[in-house]
């Protein structure tokens, strides 16, 4: 997990690699565009009973069963029903060293921009609504704040909480 | 009418090589997996020669040769035994039992065909 974290961080802090920006409940998020496989219109979602709200859905992505994660749960946001703008961002990431394909719900997908254009500031430790470890940093893009979620850390934390429950 | 050779060997791969070599050269081949089966096939088929391994389960090659030679149909039928040793004592023993000749493993296909020419003709 740490590897992914460091990698992503290096990438985000380093020189130009494109980032995908998307909106969740009025906030703008950015993730490394290289990890994005595709963006889907809202498909049929199969609910997984008794799974935590963060990841309680499954979708069919070209014959693969892919779990769906909702960052709005992580960042304690409202979760309205999907509308015409709702999209699924399919990303590839490492979970416990294993390659995984995951879907992330986005209220709206905005843009692909160069991360250089985003001024990255360290997440302010004080006054944040959110768990600082879930953030790689805060950036600015076109006058708005952009949140850089630490995808690796978010999933690691989720897996840990699952393990705690099982044990 | 092609000549019929009986090959007796407990090793399928050796049997297969022998059969392949002989049938390619135009002989008919009958196979047996041990001495007892070999005796049964040698005495119930018209064979022109026998190629047998010595070390086999159920009935070994020497016992086969002795038993077969005691059967009248074996008169004049060449028996070639296969051996991995160039052990003279073994050759003497096999010859005393009634073997005609031997072939040392590993042999090449041409060697085997040469031996067959020698004992049964082309």
């Amino acid at each position, binding site marked *: 997990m740490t590897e992914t974290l460091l990698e992503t961080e290096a990438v985000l802090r380093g020189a130009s690699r494109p980032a995908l920006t998307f909106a969740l409940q009025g906030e703008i998020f950015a993730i490394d565009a290289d990890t994005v496989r595709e963006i889907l219109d809202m498909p049929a979602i199969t609910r997984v009973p008794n799974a935590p709200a963060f990841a309680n859905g*499954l979708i069919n992505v070209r014959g693969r069963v892919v*779990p769906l994660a909702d960052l709005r749960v992580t960042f304690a946001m409202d979760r309205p029903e999907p509308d015409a703008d709702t999209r699924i961002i399919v990303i590839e990431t490492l979970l416990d060293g294993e390659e995984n394909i995951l879907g992330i719900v986005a209220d709206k997908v905005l843009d692909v921009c160069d991360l250089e254009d985003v001024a990255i500031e360290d997440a302010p430790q004080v006054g944040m609504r959110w768990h600082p470890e879930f953030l790689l940093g805060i950036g600015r893009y076109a006058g708005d704040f952009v949140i850089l979620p630490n995808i690796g850390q978010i999933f690691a934390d989720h897996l840990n909480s699952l393990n705690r429950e099982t044990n | 009418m092609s000549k019929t050779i009986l090959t007796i060997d407990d090793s399928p791969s050796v049997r297969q090589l022998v059969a392949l070599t002989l049938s390619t050269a135009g002989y008919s081949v009958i196979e047996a997996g041990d001495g007892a089966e070999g005796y049964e096939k040698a005495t119930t088929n018209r064979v022109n020669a026998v190629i047998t391994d010595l070390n086999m389960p159920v009935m070994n090659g020497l016992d086969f040769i002795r038993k077969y030679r005691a059967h009248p149909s074996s008169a004049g039928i060449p028996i070639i035994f296969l051996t*991995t040793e160039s052990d003279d004592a073994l050759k003497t023993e096999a010859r005393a039992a009634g073997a005609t000749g031997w072939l040392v493993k590993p042999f090449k296909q041409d060697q085997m065909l040469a031996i067959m020419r020698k004992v049964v003709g082309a």
Partner: protein
Amino acid sequence: MSRPDPAETFRQEARDLLEALEQALLDLSEDHGDRELVDTAFRALHTLKGSGSMSGFDEVAAFVHDFETAFDRVRKGLAPISDALVRIALNAKDHVQLLIAEPGVHAAAGMPILAALHALVAENGVAAPPPGDAAMARPAKTVAEDGSASGWRVRFRLPGDAMAMGTNPLLLLEELRDLGPCEIVADDEAVPPLDDFDPLVIYLGWDVTLRADVPREAIEDVFLFLRDAMELSIDPLADERAEAGSDGADEPADVPVERAAPIKAAAASASKSGGASLRVAAERLDELMDCVGELVIAQARLSQIAGHSQDVGLSSVAEDIERLAATLRDTTMSVRMVPIGSLFGRFRRLVHDLADDLGKEVQFVTMGEETELDKTMVERLADPLVHIIRNAIDHGMEKPDKRLADGKSTCGTVRLTAVHSGAEVAISVSDDGAGLNAQRIRAKAEEAGLITPEARLSDHELFQYIFHPGFSTAQEITSISGRGVGMDVVKRAIEGLRGTIELTSKAGEGTKATLRLPLTLAIVEGMLVRVGDGRYAIPLSAVEECLELPASEVAGTSGRNFLDVRGTLVPYLRLREMFGTDAPPDLHQKVVIVGSGDLRVGLVVDQIIGNAQTVIKSLSRLHAGIGTFSGATILGDGEVALILDVAQLVSSAEQQQRRVSGRNLGIAA
């Protein structure tokens, strides 16, 4: 049919021979005096040497030759069978396997094995030098030392019985003629009067003048089989005949020295492909299985579309394809099934070596070798089973003196059994050793903070802590079990195969690990049900029957969830409740009775939709821990449905039953 490949035939044969050798050696370690076993082992070696050299496996033949030479001393009674000898012979056997698997890589590693082997069988403990270069001896064929001559005079007389013994003198003469022009004169001096004449005896001698410039050996070779029993003289002709002899010299009848091409080519192609052919075939089967999986999903989709269409032609094609896909699926799966016995054989050796190393006496008993499982499953079971068996012998089994003191026989027993049970295979490893120490496990679990000192747990519950990461109760860490790899790894591996593992144990009497595994990993026929607005698949092989939920049960009376199924009380689970479904229940709910092992449980659902092919997709790490589901599948309409984990549901129903009945039923069957 393609032409048989001698190298592959040899590899197959070698597998069988090495297996026979290993079994004989292991049997010998139990009974040092069985001559028949010695003969069996020797014969396996002998055949291996012969066919190895014939099939172009020269390294193998050379090594086995030395192996056999050493073993021959045992066969002749010159060296005794000992445990040490069996051990080294087993090493030697392993080495042969390596030589076959990867030619040209391991040759050097064989030297110390052979040296040890020869040291053991040597007289007075002095090692006889391993018999030299093990290149197979061939009939001597040196270059003629006395050069050539313009021709030869060959005089010979065959042994009297030569003809009866299969020698045809005419063929010998023909062979001489093949060497060059011959003048042949028969010597009939010894022919008896007719009354004494035996048609099978050769009375004639021959005097042959061969006018050809051939080496002496070529002539000697003609009489190869008879040379030491016959009269033979070969003398060079005088020089003045030299010009006459040159004609026939172009066609020497000597045996060509080149290795026969087809054999060599076969051997080369075999070593190129490496590994055992079965493995290659299995990979192709995996590809095939993947394709069949995709086909089945596509076919389900087609059937669904056809079902909504008025087009008769489309429906009929869809039906054909459905039938073909089902046949293809069944055939593919059946081809992949292999008896688990192929795996069991390997463990015999493991048990032997372990018992040896640990100074324990262990008897290994196997049952159900013929039980069939998917090939991949068998392969992936190997490591977990090795680990469980190791644990049984290392931790479970006591030393002989301890066993004796406890009133047991000095020799312990490890039992490995496999049996089909519904859609599952149950594999168990049991020992009659000391059993698990519940107190020690408890102490460990408390120490690790897994349970509080106050927690009240049955022994059975305590035992399951062995599967926690990093949990090891062996008091002394041995080289066998070591640290690091624990039963948690075993559990993960088994769960990765959609299986379960359970430990039962009784102090002083032994421990039993039971694995339950599905027959196959890829596709199952499923029953599709609806619970609320979710659809779920239940492996059809686990379904025993479907019933209407009796009106008396619909209300959901508290606690006692039992159905009377023809006189048997079957516990049931309300999936609507388990899954937290909001949608209103159907008026007529159904109960699907499923079985796992000896237990049955009813699952209450809203609707039974029908049967469907389910190509099993495993759940990601995010959902693997949920437990109720063994995987997911994609339905004909493209949506995902979860597959219910019947074994898990049954065990949770069982727990519920235990709670309700208020007594500890102990370990259920």
